[in-house]
């Protein structure tokens, strides 16, 4: 995965952004997520099971929104693994956007491993009723 990722992301991201370098060095998995558009904003729901508030990092850049979540559960001493389906790798979700929301007014709520981000649309984009004179 890291090999494929590094080839593809390095090539497509020739500018060499830090994000691309980070993903190349650390294996991450993309969480399940959903984006919903409403009249006055976007709602982003990301499933991050096992992640605690302290392990969660949300970064809003110019045209990119990044969400990283580390799981802080460690296998207790004395426990032996019998069967495994979950992965230890941290979650990473990078979304490109066209600045149609105001990141300064974003509201984040994190509960039971679910992150809900409310991203209000920039004033310019909000629907306006035009009265007929």
């Amino acid at each position, binding site marked *: 995965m890291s090999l494929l990722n590094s080839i593809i992301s390095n090539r497509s991201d020739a500018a060499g952004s830090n994000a691309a370098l980070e993903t190349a060095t650390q294996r991450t998995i993309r969480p399940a997520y959903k984006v919903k558009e409403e009249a006055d904003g976007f709602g982003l729901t990301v499933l991050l099971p096992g992640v605690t508030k302290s392990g969660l990092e949300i970064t809003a850049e110019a045209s990119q929104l990044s969400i990283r979540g580390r799981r802080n559960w460690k296998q207790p001493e004395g426990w*032996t693994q019998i069967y495994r389906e979950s992965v230890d790798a941290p979650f990473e979700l*990078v979304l490109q956007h066209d600045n149609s929301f105001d990141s300064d007014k974003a509201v984040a709520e994190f509960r039971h491993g679910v992150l809900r981000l409310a991203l209000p649309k920039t004033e310019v984009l909000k629907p306006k009723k035009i009265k007929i004179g």
Partner: protein
Amino acid sequence: MRNDYPEIRGLAPLGSLRSPWAGLETEIDRLFESTLSGFASAPRGQFPVDLYEDRDNTYVRAELPGVRRDDINVEMVEDHLTITAQRKDDDDEESFSCSRSLSVPEQVQADKVSASYENGVLTVTLPKREEAKPKKISVAIT
């Protein structure tokens, strides 16, 4: 639950805009993840579970983000553990119900099974029966 949801125009995942193999990449990644890491992957549409054990208990950990404690049901019938979870939401899209049954390898004291839910992960503790615990037998040397 684990499915990627369709994206919308304003907010698209990185890669899909640039790479012609965007969909394929993730499929290949998945393939590599499951074959190279030695981890099994959860059947499609089901939540992933892990099994651990120590001397006294068997532990099942299930990833169930965003479910209320009251909406999780854990049942032990013979040597099968069934976890049922449902999410009720005003928003119909987010409502779901899912269930998974697994056979527990060791003999379990079914009446002493306990469970806890934290950060979207359910941990079920299944105490082993006395006869299933490893025993230390001291052998007298004559």
